[in-house]
């Protein structure tokens, strides 16, 4: 599984439009399945996550794997996953 380093897009990932822009960039080179690595990401907003997590999950059987997530980032990911009906797996690193 490929690793996608989310900190390439910053340590603060908030805002729906920024999420859309980021997803467009990700979509150019992504190879599914992918594990999202949140190392160095301090803040994640649910609007941003809606625009990134759900489209990625849809391309890998409604599942998403994440690693190196801080508590607040994990809480946000869980909310988005529950709402979007996707399964989320936190890989231990």
């Amino acid at each position, binding site marked *: 599984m490929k690793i996608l380093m989310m900190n390439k897009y910053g340590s*603060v990932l908030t805002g729906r439009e920024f999420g859309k822009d980021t997803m467009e960039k990700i979509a150019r080179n992504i190879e599914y399945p992918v594990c999202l690595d949140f190392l160095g990401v301090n*803040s994640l907003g649910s609007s941003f996550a809606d625009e990134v997590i759900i489209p990625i999950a849809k391309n890998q059987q409604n599942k998403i794997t994440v690693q190196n997530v801080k508590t607040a980032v994990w809480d946000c990911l869980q*909310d988005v996953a529950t709402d979007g009906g996707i399964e989320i797996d936190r890989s231990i690193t």
Partner: protein
Amino acid sequence: MSKESEYLSVTEVAKMLGISIPTLRMMRKTTTLGKFETLIGKRVKFSKKAIEEYLQGKNDEVTSWVIPTGQLEIISTKDTINLEAKKNIVDLRGVHYIDPYGTLSLLVYLISRSRESKKTQLLINTSEACKKLRHVGFFNYIDQFAPLVEYNKKILEGEKYFPPDSLLSITILRRKGEERRVIEQLNTLFIQQGFSDEIGGYIGWLIGELADNSLTHDGNLLKNKMCFIQAQRYSVGENSKCVVIGVADVGQGIHKSLKQNPKYSNLSDHMAILNAFKQNVSSWDDEYKRGKGLTDILSIAMGNKSLVRVSSGNIDFKFDFQITDKAKITRIEPPLLDAQSTRFGFLYIDHQFNKNTREEADNFLTKEINRYENINDE
């Protein structure tokens, strides 16, 4: 000069200061004004010279801050901060303490008045509250965005002051995405000032959602959009390291925005504000699947056992989650200020907690909204 002409009556002083008699009564107890009074016969009189000097900001003493004790509170209510705002005069001279929610509420109130071509006279002195407002950039934004606000700029000239609870001065966002820079700055400040690692994650999340909402729904043309953010530390006792975050805009207000969706257009204004916090309730059509940001903010506050203040137009609510089984929503009346805008205050307690789910926040809201509907029915 006759003895009589050296003194002013209570009514005369209230008129000179542009305040009501009950407010003057309060200011006599809480500000240096009380020192200018004397009893002549059975009547309270004030030294005319002292009052004239007071008006010029010459003889007011620094008022020590009233740091709230006991239960945590976002303390900017009309009663607690002693703010006098009526017609075209806003008197800050009796203000003891003002938090980011109060500061930003006042700022957007004055900007909104100026946008409506209404003149406002702002009365200030050299109290710590006024000096703090200067320190956080309040007057710079007044000068920039509220040209119809008049105040004596000389009063605070040369005053050097660093508020002990300073964290993030007032910062303006004009475009979406600018909040990320502010959150990064705050995250750095949290680390420097000894807060936990987790605080930045939750505060970044809530600022991100609130700023995104403000700049999406405020209803202004792009050039007129503005969202303000401010943060300060807030310590009560040894174990309560907290942050108060204020976020405010000069937009149409939550209730007006939500009622643009025909599904919610029949709601009363206060019900529209409460419903806006429910999951999947948005001014956008259902197909866009919006309306989660405010629910997330409540779910963080619930888990954090903290407080949220939200004001839209002249409606002001407090969500209090400090005691789990007594969590409730209270309408604050009278509101601090009546301004066409949205104002948020969020008190975040820096401790370990489990965030509540969106569903739990939704259930709480449903219960509280039902309670409000029953109150109205009665």
